[in-house]
């Protein structure tokens, strides 16, 4: 398994994903796991963007000036939906955290799971 340029480009994202997963599995309070989920979300989106850019970096819009290497518009278009859905999830989770915070303001799992 040789180290190609594409794999090297993916390295920071894999690191980001590991950080997010570590945070999600080790968080003590609701807010932290919420933020960790956002980190994983960002990592996923970045994977899509970088995969799309593997063919080239130019914006895939046809104009008078033609470039030699366009990036793939298909994954970029599709990831827009995932961005919106991720945002909606975060909003819903924040709303629930707000409601839960009235009873236990620290939002710790230990308090919430044991009753």
């Amino acid at each position, binding site marked *: 398994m040789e180290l190609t340029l594409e794999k090297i480009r993916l390295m920071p994202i894999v690191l980001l994903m590991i950080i997010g997963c570590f945070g*999600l599995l080790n968080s003590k309070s609701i807010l932290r796991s919420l933020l960790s989920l956002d980190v994983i979300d960002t990592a996923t989106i970045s994977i899509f963007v970088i995969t799309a850019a593997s063919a080239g970096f130019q914006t895939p819009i046809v104009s008078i000036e033609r470039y030699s290497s366009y990036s793939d518009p298909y994954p970029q278009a599709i990831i827009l939906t995932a961005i919106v859905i991720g945002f909606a999830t975060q909003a819903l989770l924040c709303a*629930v955290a707000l409601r839960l915070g009235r009873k236990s303001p620290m939002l710790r799992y230990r308090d919430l799971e044991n009753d």
Partner: protein
Amino acid sequence: MIDLQIILPALIFLPALLGFLGCVFPKIIFPLGVISILGFAAASLSVLGGDFTYSFTLVGEGGIQFSVDSYSFPLIFGSCITLLIVFGLFANRFSHYFYQICLVLLTALFISFTTVDLVSLFISLELLGFCAFLLVADRNDKKSLFNSFQYLIGGGLAMLIFLIGVVQAFTFTGSFLLEDLVRAPNTALCLIIAGLLTKSGVFLCGLWVPNIYSHANCQSSAILSGCVTCAGIAPIARMSQILTPISDSMIVIGVISAVVAAIYAVFERESGRALGWSSVSQLGIAILSPTYGCIYAMQHGICKALLFSTLHDEDKNSADLSVSHQSQSNLRQSPQELMRVIAFVFASLSIMGFPFLAGFITKNWVKYDLPFEAQLIYTTASLLTSTVYARLIFDRVNMYVQRRSRIESNRFNILSIIDETLSSPKNYILILSIILLIASSFTYPDLFTIESTRTAVVSAILGGILFVSVVGIQADDFVKPVTRTLDLVGAPFLVAALLLANLLYFKI
């Protein structure tokens, strides 16, 4: 000639349209919604047994592909019937808000049953997750809010895992179609399957199921078990049909899920949680066979909806709404209670696979479709399922008898009972569903061999005996409810790793 290319997408998006319009005109839209659900149920029933297949692409060349085929019809029929049962039985306790969530949920279900595109699948599953979140949080207390939080964060993570699998498959195949997954690498397949399994609530990924079913409202649990968990079954069945390694791994996961979850259910004291564990076990059976899995999930979904709807007394259900009229309605509602108990017993027997009920047919189909090695464990799982439902029937009947002895004063008069039974529309729904459960078993008479009937009856009796033998074991410290968020969230990773290990090294 009607153009199916336009009609089918319009039909798929009709419930969501009605749901959103219902926010503005609740009075007009609700009957329309029920009529449209009835129409969907009738239409899918009429093409259920046949091999009608129609594929279409939504926006011309390179658009979103749908395929309406034998995988989708049973599940569409099942979810429509589930929604109708729940609407009918809980009609006086809903806000119009609840109906709208259900209608939007129906569109999400239709998309996930019919799509053959991974990205549309992702979107429909996320929409489904939001609707399920709103249904769980409908009870609006701290516990159910926390459960819905766990569901949403676990489901969101599972869907992100699914998405990573999708992009890895895309880099190898260059498309998002399910049929192109044949050329995808193993890691991508594992990630996609782990996401789907979490949504459909099969064991290890489906640890959220018992918590949520026991704490949500009855009507929400009925919809969750009847519709929402079926959404992952159709894509899994489609994938197992074309990918042999996936169908082999599904047999391993399904068998483990069926047995382990059934053992949990046997030792669980609380009825709601036991039904949840049993649901995990039944869906494990449903993913075993790609051909009949959808029909099995349909039968299980309808029976589970009936079970959750009739699990508690009518009074206990409405206790939080109006305490005052409870005492006076006690006498009047007794025949209705009897009807609910009878429906509960019939639905339980159907899931046990008792002869002359719908479950017998689907259980035999799945059984004959399995490889011989898996049949042994499959039989074990069905025996354990019989034990669970023997206990549930015993508890339910016991509860009813105790309740009757409390209100001893009314005399037993058959005529008045029949009269009162026919006076309530809810009883018609219950009677109709029981008759349908029985009638559907006669559509395939060749399955009623002496051997299979005997096996089913013996399995039910053995289940009863096993129940008597384990009833004394107080297993409170044997089965701890899994409530830690870490366990719920970390499960998809574990399953993806196990699947990868299976595909690369074990090759079961």
